[in-house]
């Protein structure tokens, strides 16, 4: 149940948003694995989903088992129903997915993104905000603003991903003028999107995986060794408090400019939680959505899926002890890790 797992030391109270209570109304659905087809099925050709898979572990699982399956869980279902029922005349609502490490926040995000993509929304997806603030190979000084740094490699990669995700919209989104560098292109794209969303031609979904990276310290350094502070990263990264542009976007949304789209932010919120006050200020008010560990039913479902796909090979893996025995029942354990740690 979402309200049962609290964030310790959370300084802000729950927001008073005009959304109905998220804990009600969701019927108790049996968690089952529904296929999210990654490769085209010859019998029923569906378009391939361009949503990137969050972590390399999931990618290797998909490659080994030959198909991409997602366990339908309560947080993802809640989010989908909330987004479906959201009122677009109101200012954008922000949702925050939080939970302990390894409980499935990124995968829930991918699930929701895929659902929205299927319904025809335009997706603005940042797969990993942490990757932007760390280990950047090329950091160039910005062309038209001093004291700002650009990351052309990551900017171009993001643009390519954006294009593959939203190809059907690119004819509608007009006015991408010629830009000299990728980071500027990103800035232009964001500005265009902002303008066109207000006209209401499509629904936009903004998803950031690892939003707390945007308000933390960056691990980047300039050539002379001085560290880069938050406010100085790239014109293209108009997210969070980095650049004035997106600060404007946030302000615009919240002031109630008549935008007809929903925005939601997703956070990878590690435990202990990121104590950054600026992050809370910028994101607030938001609707928190908790992602707990697997319940016993979810664990059974996941386990039977692995048995069916022959991932669990050891003959002792099917007995009570093989599944984790007392330890699992004591902790209410984690499905994926139990299946892996006990046996190869």
């Amino acid at each position, binding site marked *: 149940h979402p309200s049962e797992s609290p964030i310790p030391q959370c300084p802000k109270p729950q927001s008073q948003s005009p959304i109905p209570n998220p804990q009600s109304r969701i019927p108790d659905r049996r968690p089952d694995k529904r296929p999210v087809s990654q490769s085209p099925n010859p019998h029923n050709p569906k378009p391939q989903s361009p949503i990137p898979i969050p972590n390399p572990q999931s990618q290797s699982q998909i490659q080994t088992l030959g198909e991409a399956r997602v366990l339908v869980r309560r947080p993802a279902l809640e989010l989908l129903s909330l987004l479906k029922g959201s009122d677009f005349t109101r200012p954008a609502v922000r949702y925050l997915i939080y939970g302990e490490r390894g409980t499935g926040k990124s995968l829930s995000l991918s699930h929701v993104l895929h659902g929205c993509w299927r319904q025809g929304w335009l997706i603005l997806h940042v797969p990993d905000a942490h990757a932007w603030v760390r280990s950047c190979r090329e950091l160039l000084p910005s062309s038209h603003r001093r004291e700002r740094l650009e990351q052309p490699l990551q900017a171009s990669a993001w643009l390519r991903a954006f294009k593959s995700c939203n190809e059907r919209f690119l004819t509608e989104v007009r006015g991408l003028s010629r830009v000299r560098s990728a980071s500027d292109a990103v800035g232009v794209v964001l500005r265009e999107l902002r303008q066109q969303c207000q006209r209401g031609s499509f629904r936009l979904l903004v998803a950031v995986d690892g939003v707390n990276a945007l308000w933390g310290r960056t691990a980047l350094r300039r050539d002379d060794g001085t560290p880069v502070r938050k406010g100085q990263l790239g014109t293209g990264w108009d997210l969070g408090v980095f650049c004035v542009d997106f600060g404007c976007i946030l302000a615009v949304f919240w002031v109630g400019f008549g935008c007809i789209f929903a925005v939601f932010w997703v956070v990878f919120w590690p435990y202990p939680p990121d104590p950054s006050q600026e992050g809370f200020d910028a994101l607030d008010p938001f609707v928190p959505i908790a992602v707990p560990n697997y319940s016993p039913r979810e664990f059974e479902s996941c386990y039977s899926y692995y048995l069916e796909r022959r991932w669990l090979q*050891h003959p002792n893996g099917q007995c009570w*002890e093989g599944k984790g025995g007392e330890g699992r029942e004591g902790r209410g354990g984690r499905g994926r890790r139990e299946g892996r740690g006990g046996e*190869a």
Partner: protein
Amino acid sequence: MAAPSAVGLSRRLRAWLPRIMPVRWSRYDPSYLEPEVNKELYQKPPEKLTEEEREQMELKAVRPIKAAPPTLSSSVFSDPMVSKFTNMMMKNGNKVLARSLMSQTLEAIKRKQLEKYHKAPENEKEAIECNPYVIFHQALKNCQPIIGLSSITRGGKTYQVPVPLTDNRKRFLAMKWLITECRENKHRRTMMPEKLSQELLLAFNNEGPIIKKKHVLHKMAEANRAYAHFRWW
């Protein structure tokens, strides 16, 4: 191949003169019993135990029991061969690293086989073995030599004499060859689990450099058949 070691000698002496020759570094009195780790035995109700098991249980009430070594596990997934192999892979006492390498190797084997399995047509699926433990055991079995060579000096000259091997020696040689091969003949940037899984899969199919080494050893033993009478044990 060494001459009959002190262990074999001491074991034979011990059987002949009990309580005189200690085995290796063990300082336990012979009255001490080995620890019983099998959980199922304890969960059986007393009526279902056989004669021997009942005697064993009665002895336990009277005799002292040795301390269980840290490698002895009551887990359903523990395998003595895998533990032995992990110990041989270990360097400088870094058991954590060795164990993680071992589990990554088994996982790599499983992943490769599962990919093959899921891509294969229906009639070939039965033939593909996906259980990494089965593959590991079979590969080691395939790598074990039947006959070994021992250096014996006669009249100033050293001869390579063909000699039968004990089970322990065979297992040891198979594991040693596997590990040495994976350590020496790989590219600098290849990870150990990847290389090991590759070699194990080759050995499972009776191919690869270790099987070749075994065949070379057999051929040399065959060639030196004439010196077999130099063996006195």
